[in-house]
């Protein structure tokens, strides 16, 4: 027991002194969070609307222009017809309204000339939004002018709902991803290095039992994974204003179980790798696809169905889903238990694989 304690103490010292490990554990996930957080995929872009009035506008037309400018979804640019036609060709406008000065009838007489809406067909969503909003405004104006009572009564009601932002989705994913990276790489590299340089052999020349050394290294990384998760969630909440609804305490066993699963993967890789150089090749082959398929940056249900079948069973998916369910939806243990069982199954399988890869190594001696 004392041996494990002392080894853990030494192993923590070594981890903390390893600047590279610290960078990849804490700083690089932060950079990823910063970049994707600032990209803010969830902000609806404004529709660029060009307006060209061909003659001095009358009062009605003037009022219509003001109304257009007050629509929050529009970014209205006023210019001459030539300039605006050019701009839409360049793709800088989703739609351009070419409005004659006497577009609005004066004194109720329908003498108004027609308006032309130019549509940018390469931005179909934005341009159709523009057209429907313009039509809506005109319909209302018509109703008001004819004095007919509205047939339908529509009220909007403001409900302060939990308004999910992309960052809320992102933070649990980044935490899961970082735990995977830390667990897989820190173990795979260091143990392949120990193996290659003969450190493990030297340790085996002492009465120490191999499991004692492995346990010390695992404990170290479990502590690191909890600190790492706390740090990243802390920055996510305080700096990026991410929301956390569920229990922080439920996150701890999820993080630890996730780390055990990926530590097993790291040990397996270091067992099969004969040199340190082969570690990134094997590790990236496994880790890289999970980066995109494990539900870190994009929801899995946006993927093609066949890919979802793969993505749904990846170890990273179970970890990021469990984290997200707790952080975003306030899920309780029983609500995420299928994820937990799957993570346990992966952990058992990967630890067995690690055992196998090191027993192969032993046989070669």
């Amino acid at each position, binding site marked *: 027991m004392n041996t494990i304690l002392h080894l853990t103490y030494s192993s923590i010292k070594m981890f903390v002194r390893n600047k590279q490990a610290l960078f990849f554990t804490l700083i690089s996930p932060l950079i990823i969070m910063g970049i994707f957080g600032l990209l803010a995929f969830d902000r609806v872009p404004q529709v660029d609307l060009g307006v060209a009035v061909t003659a001095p506008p009358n009062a009605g037309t003037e009022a219509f222009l003001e109304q257009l400018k007050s629509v929050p979804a529009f970014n209205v640019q006023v210019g001459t017809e030539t300039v605006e036609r050019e701009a839409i060709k360049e793709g800088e406008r989703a739609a351009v309204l070419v409005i004659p000065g006497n577009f609005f009838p004066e004194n109720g007489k329908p003498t108004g000339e027609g308006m032309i809406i130019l549509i940018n067909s390469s931005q179909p969503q934005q341009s159709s939004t523009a057209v429907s909003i313009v039509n809506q405004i005109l319909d209302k104006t018509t109703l008001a002018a004819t004095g007919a009572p509205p047939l339908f009564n529509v009220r909007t009601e403001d409900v302060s709902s939990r308004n999910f932002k992309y960052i809320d989705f992102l933070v649990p994913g980044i935490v899961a991803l970082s735990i995977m990276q830390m667990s897989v790489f820190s173990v795979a590299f260091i143990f392949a290095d120990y193996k290659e340089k*003969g450190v493990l052999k*030297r340790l085996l020349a002492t009465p120490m039992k191999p499991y004692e050394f492995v346990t010390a290294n695992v404990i170290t990384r479990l502590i690191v994974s909890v600190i790492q998760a706390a740090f990243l969630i802390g920055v996510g909440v305080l700096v990026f204003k991410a929301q956390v609804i569920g229990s922080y305490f439920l996150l701890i066993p999820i993080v630890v179980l996730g780390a055990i699963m990926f530590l097993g993967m790291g040990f397996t890789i270091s067992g099969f790798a004969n040199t340190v150089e082969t570690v990134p090749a094997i590790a990236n082959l496994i880790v890289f696809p999970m980066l995109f398929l494990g539900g870190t940056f994009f929801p899995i249900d946006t993927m093609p169905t066949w890919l979802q079948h793969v993505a749904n069973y990846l170890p990273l998916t179970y970890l990021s889903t469990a984290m997200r369910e707790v952080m975003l939806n306030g899920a309780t243990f029983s609500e995420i238990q299928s994820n937990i069982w799957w993570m346990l199954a992966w952990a058992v399988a990967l630890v067995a694989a690690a055992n196998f890869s090191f027993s192969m190594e032993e046989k070669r001696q």
Partner: protein
Amino acid sequence: MNNIIEVKNLTKTYGDFTAVDNISFAVRQGETFGILGPNGAGKTTTLEMIEGLKSMTSGEVMLDGNDVRTEAREVKAKIGVQLQSSSFFDGLNLLELVETFASLYGRKVDAMSLLEQVQLTDKARSKAKELSGGQKQRLSIAVALVNDPKVIFLDEPTTGLDPQARHNLWDLVKQIKALGKTVVLTTHYMEEAEILCDRIAIMDHARIVAMDTTVNLLRQSGVASAIAFRPSREIDPAQLQTLPGVDKSAASGGEYRLSCTNVTAAMPALFQRLRELNVEVKDLKVTEPTLEDVFLALTGHELRD
């Protein structure tokens, strides 16, 4: 004297390749035992099987009453090991390394005094990777001493070191020997074996070809002492062959070489004969047989090829 290590019919094969072929020997308590041989002779494999690091294909090794096969942990607790190419954790300084290794034996040690023993106190707070080759080997020895072992194994401790570092390490091995510890070392340097070892086993192609005290090996090998010189003018080597104590004589490239059964008798007779022939000599030297010659005589090939 008690045998602290007994090796019986030890064999290690990898597929068709036999690395160690049915060797037997014993090491006595307190002696320094050398295993001498060229690279690939099976020295390291032999050592690592005794240390419990490699499995044996067949045979038996007893160390201080423990069977290495079944009581490897007991054996490991009693020995100190310096591996041929061991390295240590990069993230710890020497003091921390020594303390960490002591903890593997469930011990607490005065790390500083151990480092003092191997003259590394000024490097106590450095990392192992910052040490020179000689310093690394000394650290290795300090770490091998953390458990106050009965037997210490040194696998080619001076390979790759410069002459000064090598002499330094020899002094250290002599110190360890003076502490009463049994030392088992492998080397492919004859000089090292002659200087450090009480007894030597010569290994070649997975077998032990000779084993005796260093002195006896030199004496019994049949390799003779020799007198070599350059005469001032050419003479017939046959004229020297009949001298007392001389076995054979030969000349090549102006250098004459007499193999002697008795140098003490041959020397005055040689001078006498040369005076009669009115020949002066230059570059006179007497060469004693070395383990190098012994090895050549035993195996028919040079130690280093």
